[in-house]
């Protein structure tokens, strides 16, 4: 497997496996991440996967000599046997969504922008095949690829100051879910009863890089039941 190593500051090294975002790039990222987790070498603090690279934070104290050179050597040794594709057993996570209404105030806008009925937006959004490329930006926040361009919509000119946790939004050609309350300019189309950020659990995130996602519509009644009385 081809990759390059380069430093990120004096305590991290970036393993870059590709130049462009693709399924193949993600297979490599997942394989590298899985291998690092499995071996979990004592010089490693943690690894952070992204679209086309895996960044490894390391302990300088673990090495004699020049730490960066040493860590590169160890990574080359580790990755000698990596086989992308094999370790990528992907989960499918189904995410229920209460579309429109109070929690999806921009559903009419997204529909109008694309010359569709709101029901058609729901149908297209909930029939797509999605992939979690990485988790970043906020705790548990998935960068999701695979949304149909038929329901793409520009960001709001003025961002909202507060978007409630678990809101589903669209920004350009991307869809996403906000795990925690945050300001943002996304067009909001619905809300899921599922918690995406679970600080008391390990892992603290419902989703991990590599997951496939399916959204499916639910009613207000089902939403309330799934929340079990919680707000």
């Amino acid at each position, binding site marked *: 497997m081809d990759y390059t190593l380069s430093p990120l500051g004096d305590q991290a090294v970036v393993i870059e496996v590709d130049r462009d975002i693709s399924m193949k790039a993600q297979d490599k990222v997942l394989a590298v991440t899985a291998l690092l987790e499995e071996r979990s070498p004592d010089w490693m603090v*943690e690894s952070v996967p*992204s679209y086309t690279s895996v960044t490894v934070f390391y302990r300088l104290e673990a090495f004699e000599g020049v730490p960066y050179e040493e860590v590169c050597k160890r990574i080359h040794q580790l990755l000698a046997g990596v086989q992308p594709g094999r370790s990528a057993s992907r989960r499918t996570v189904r995410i229920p969504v209460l579309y429109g209404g109070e929690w999806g105030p921009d559903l009419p806008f997204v529909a109008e922008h694309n010359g569709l009925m709101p029901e058609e937006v729901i149908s297209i959004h909930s029939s797509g095949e999605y992939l979690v490329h990485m988790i970043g*930006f906020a*705790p548990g926040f998935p960068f999701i690829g695979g949304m149909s361009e038929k329901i793409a919509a520009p960001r709001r000119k003025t961002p909202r100051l507060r978007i409630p946790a678990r809101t589903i939004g669209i920004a350009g050609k991307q869809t996403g879910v906000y795990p925690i309350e945050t300001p943002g300019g996304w067009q909001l189309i619905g809300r899921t009863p599922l918690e995406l950020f679970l*600080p008391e659990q390990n*892992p603290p995130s419902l989703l991990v890089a590599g997951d496939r996602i399916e959204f499916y519509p639910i009613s207000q009644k089902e939403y309330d039941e799934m929340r079990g009385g919680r707000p």
Partner: protein
Amino acid sequence: MIKVRKAGLSDTIQDLGRFGYQKFGVVTSGAMDAFAHRVANLLVGNEETEGTLEMTLVGPRLYFEEHAVIALCGGDLSASINGKPVPMWKPVFIEKGTELKIGPAVAGCRMYLAVAGGFEIPLLMGSRSTYLKAELGGYEGRVLKTGDTLKVKGRNGQAEQIFSRLECAACGIQSADWTITKNVLPVLSDHYEIRVIKGRQYDLFSKESRHRFQTSQFAVSSQSDRMGYRLTGPTLQLETEQELISEAVSFGSIQVPADGDPIILMADRQTTGGYPKIGQVASVDLSTVAQARPGNYLSFREISLEKAQELYVRRERNLQELKTGIALKFR
């Protein structure tokens, strides 16, 4: 117990940070000036991983309902008891019934208060650090408020030795008759030269921008916080505008959004970012950046990665020596 009689501007519990969960988007947080945090803990006989109170520009008024030994390190936020200054960078015994007033800052930006034994704060994902934006960790995930109570854990080992050595009756306070060597202490001013190594996208910047980065002064803007320091000065541009693929960032990454004003990512930075990084603050100088406040100036001097790592290893050795030295004082 320690009572918060009046809260400061932003008092949070921090430690060395929350590591191992960045792959789930969990921000590391932790002390902005990790050096001051660590020294404060060492001075009171704690492990470096204990939580300390990070105070910014104006600290709180704290009322001690029990005897305690504390250490104050980092920026000088003019700590005082009954109008008399409390010394920094050494362990200080505080008698019960004493009020400690912290603020305003006279030099630097952030002060750290460690208490012998440590604050009783639950661990979340292995850390006591507070991440305010997600209301996570620390003291109920938030800044201290007037009326809050900080509990102090029981002292053991070295923390108890230091305590019993300094304890006195009806003395108000009593500080150790020694302090740590001056050459490891930060020099606080209003203009700092920060050592940097090249950022991952350094070569994508225009020749002119690279030159400006190396030779100009940048002002720390008022829109600077635990997440990042926004800098103003000459703007920096890529040779050709392009969209980058998001990737991991780290403490001290200097990224440049399209408006050309650089941002230094600090303790509460997001885990990933898509802006080009022109530079990266050498780890040993992160504490210095953390002590710069809005209106102060930063300039950048490039060093090699090898040099940055050498400086880091040397400072770790200094801290080890300091630790041994403190242990000897109280044996």
